[in-house]
């Protein structure tokens, strides 16, 4: 009954007794599982058949496994309740809404935190300046006020002078002459630039 393909240990197991050893039982169980899925190779298949032939207890076990397997294969798939897909769509819409709401809330919280941070920073800076640098602040305010008043006065005086000048005939003629001279100088400069940037012809000597 034994073949040379089998390791010595299996030969020993099979010839030693009518009842299989624990090692053989374990191996047989694994082979049964593979056999149910049609995954036994030739050697395993031969060994499996041999065990079935030699050990009646294993053959009985194989029958019970086959019946269990048949029972599972004959059991139909569980069907979802009616309206499952529609309910899932409703949940999906709710989920999307919730997700958008969470994003909005998160964004709002971040904005609020930033605003509060900025405000706190500004207030802290103001408090620091008022408390620690009162003199510097006073000077700064005085300087800023004076500077603003000075700039304003300068602007009023300059604008008034320009207005007054432009209202006289001589000033207008002078401005027109000035503009014409300026334009003529600019045109002359452009012409000069164009002449000087013209490429000179290149002569190639031939042998």
């Amino acid at each position, binding site marked *: 009954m034994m073949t040379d393909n089998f390791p010595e240990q299996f030969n020993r197991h099979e010839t030693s007794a009518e009842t299989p050893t624990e090692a053989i039982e374990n191996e047989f169980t694994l082979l049964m599982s593979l056999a149910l899925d049609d995954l036994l190779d030739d050697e395993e298949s031969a060994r499996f058949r041999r065990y079935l032939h030699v050990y009646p207890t294993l053959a009985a076990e194989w029958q019970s496994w086959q019946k269990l397997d048949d029972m599972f294969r004959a059991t139909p798939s*569980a069907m979802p309740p009616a309206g499952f897909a529609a309910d899932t769509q409703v949940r*999906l819409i709710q989920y999307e809404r919730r997700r958008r709401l969470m994003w909005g809330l998160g964004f709002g919280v971040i904005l609020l935190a930033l605003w509060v941070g900025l405000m706190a920073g500004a207030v802290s800076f103001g408090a620091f300046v008022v408390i620690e640098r009162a003199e510097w602040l006073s000077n700064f305010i005085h300087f800023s006020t004076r500077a603003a008043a000075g700039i304003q006065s300068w602007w009023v005086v300059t604008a008034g002078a320009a207005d007054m000048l432009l209202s006289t005939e001589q000033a207008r003629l002078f401005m027109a002459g000035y503009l014409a001279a300026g334009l003529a100088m600019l045109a002359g400069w452009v012409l000069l630039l164009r002449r000087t940037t013209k490429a000179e012809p290149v002569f190639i000597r031939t042998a």
Partner: protein
Amino acid sequence: MNEQEERWVEKARSGDKVAFGHLVEAYQRPVYNLTYRMLGNPEEAEDAAQEAFLRAYARLGQYDPQRKFSTWLFSIANHHCIDRLRKRRATFISIDDNPVLQNLEGDAPRPEPTAVTMERNREVQMLIARMDPDYRTPLILRYWEEYSYEEIAQTMDITVSAVKSRLFRARKQMAQLVNEHEAATTPPASGRGSQAVLQFSRIRDEEPRMLRTALAGI
């Protein structure tokens, strides 16, 4: 995955809810079957299946189109079920009040086959409920989705040899459960093995109707 499904997935990834709705319709049966077989409670299974679809929608950006969509979806559903089983506290589920038995797939007008099918479903569900959760998934995918070992491995994120091992252990555990029923309720003179499955139905009817599913594998 056929071309139509590929288009739906592509559209769903760009935020098209209608396209995702088509995917829900296409996969509602297998996803629900997985969650129901894993959790054993129709209401919880429905909630878990819907949650799995929502999670899939939220993670569509992470989906690799090279991968089979169904294995990716089952993977999400399976992880969600395992999370629920871990969190679940001991709850009692009435087998008699199980509405899923009214919704079994197939032709159902004749009363006799329906009763047989319901009985078989009940027995199978009892066996699964008493198994370790890690062993339930490969069995469900193998028997109801006819997944190959490679596909089961992809879904569960384990190796093919681990799938082989888990299926083997699952079947062994199943056979042991049947034998335990037999040993607990039949006279000592009766045989073991092949008669166990036949006796399982009779024995089960004598048991209390409330099944403490949470005890299984938690």
